[in-house]
């Protein structure tokens, strides 16, 4: 699959002992003969463990852990937008531009982010700190406009608040 990118580190991805324990917990959620159901949660886990994205090696490793043909794992990983198939910044800034956010001036939030980060949509900063993405409705529409940075939502945004949030990131 052309979308897949190889890791450049040369180090084969392996789960830590703690991550392996979490894999065990994931497996228990599904009937024993339905192990493939674990592929999405294990991909989510792999993405967290391996620096925020999934290289082809990481996908192969997930296939091995879950016990699925690699091709099936590629299919899943390419279908869902949350699996990043190329490296992303330490902070993945995702701004919603769908209807409720747009009505509440998400255009201004987009402009504020683009000028503050000096990035267009889909770009990452040279220093690896930021990736900026445009996303569809994130289900926080009554608190529009909003954005997500990694696991957290930031809602009721104004351009000033956006700057403040970006400044306060460690």
């Amino acid at each position: 699959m052309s979308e897949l990118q190889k890791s450049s580190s040369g180090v084969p991805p392996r789960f830590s002992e703690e991550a392996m324990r979490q894999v065990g917990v994931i497996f228990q959620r599904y009937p024993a003969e339905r192990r493939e159901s674990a592929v999405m949660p294990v991909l989510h886990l792999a993405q967290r463990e391996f620096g925020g994205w999934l290289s082809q090696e990481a996908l192969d490793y997930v296939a091995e852990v879950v016990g699925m043909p690699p091709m099936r794992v590629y299919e899943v990983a390419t279908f869902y937008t949350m699996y990043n198939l190329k490296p992303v910044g330490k902070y993945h800034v995702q701004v919603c531009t769908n209807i409720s956010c747009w009505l509440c001036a998400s255009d201004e939030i987009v402009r504020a982010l683009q000028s503050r980060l000096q990035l267009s949509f889909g770009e990452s900063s040279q220093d690896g700190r930021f990736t900026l993405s445009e996303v569809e409705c994130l289900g926080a529409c009554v608190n529009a406009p909003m954005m997500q940075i990694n696991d957290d939502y930031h809602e009721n945004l104004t351009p000033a608040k956006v700057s403040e949030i970006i400044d306060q990131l460690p």
Partner: protein
Amino acid sequence: MTKIVYKHIHLENSHTLAVYKSVGGYQALEKALTLSGDDIIDEVKRSGIRGRGGAGFPAGLKWSFIPKDDRAKYLVCNADEGEPGTCKDRDIMRYVPHQLIEGMVIAGYAVRAERGYIYIRGEFYREAERLQAAIDEAYAAGYLGNNVMGRGVRFDLAVHRGGGAYVCGEETGLIESLEGKKGQPRLKPPFPANIGLYGGPTVINNVETLTSVPDIILNGGAWYSALGVEKSSGTKVFAVSGHVNKPGNYEVELGIPLKVLLEEYAGGVRGGWDNLKGVIPGGASSPVFTKAVCETVTMDYDAIAKAGSMLGSGAVIVLDRSVCIVRAIARLSRFYRHESCGQCSPCREGTGWLSQIMQRIEQGKGVRGDIDLLLSVASNIQGKTICALGDAAAMPVAGAIRAFREEFEYHIEHGRCMVA
């Protein structure tokens, strides 16, 4: 006004078991376990509650379709909340997760499902954490597991996070996804009630539907059906977003006039009622209402359908007079094009066309005949696809042309917007 799913969300630490129990939590489950599964289903039928995820199918009837054979059965909670404008389930999950869990154990017991899943959209990471913490508490307290409340009933429950695909909110796309595949919807029939998750009989309900169950069991179906209006009983959360002074999630009885919802609950339309242009009443896929309709329409399934739209997920999106309707719909068309899973050609091609034509009209490059073209593309999608995403893409376009045709014409003729 009576509240059900949101009645405890303002309590401090409402998400904890201790607080939930202090307001009567899990008493409905205790009562349910003394009843038969069929009694529970009858009670839910009597309540008249219709599914709160979009299609409005009567929940009790859906449960009664589960065959009484010896295959393993499943209960799935649809927490994908992906329809633009919709954000009501999130507050249930983060503030009263135990009420959802209690509803699920009761539903699982009623249909003899021993396993349940909550399929939550992947971006709701914090909400998934909340749910997991509540599930852990419920296991420790014996409300989940292989001997629920010591009554020998088994119910296991797990959270499953999605991966950012709107189509996985469609029930069979969701099932595929839960099975570890691409979330491509299945042809129906067979319906999930017969062949669902892992091939077993499966009930799928929305978060808000399941969270209403404890009160129905505790107070009775008749009590519930007295709320709201005929054929639209009970309460509903409306997520009011866009151009109102107090956007928010408001739980009210079905049948409330839209004008009252906007003026008395949501703080009024920005700039006053006369500044209203229109309202999308039930999520992005529902056809837009003009202000004239908003003056009188009431928020119940039948009244909204009669006025030409859908109650859908209850996402009320308010547009004031500054809004270019062409631009608004073009944004939605882009969304549906992006989210089409590509399985059926009327949807894959049609959503592409709709988006492209809307885009060019918006950019002032529309040509005469584009309106008819949009309508014909829309009608070529509707009713001709595997899942309702195709319809969801077509309806807002056709609806906006019906309601605001002169704006589309102006845009095409003058190459720019009528309002700005």
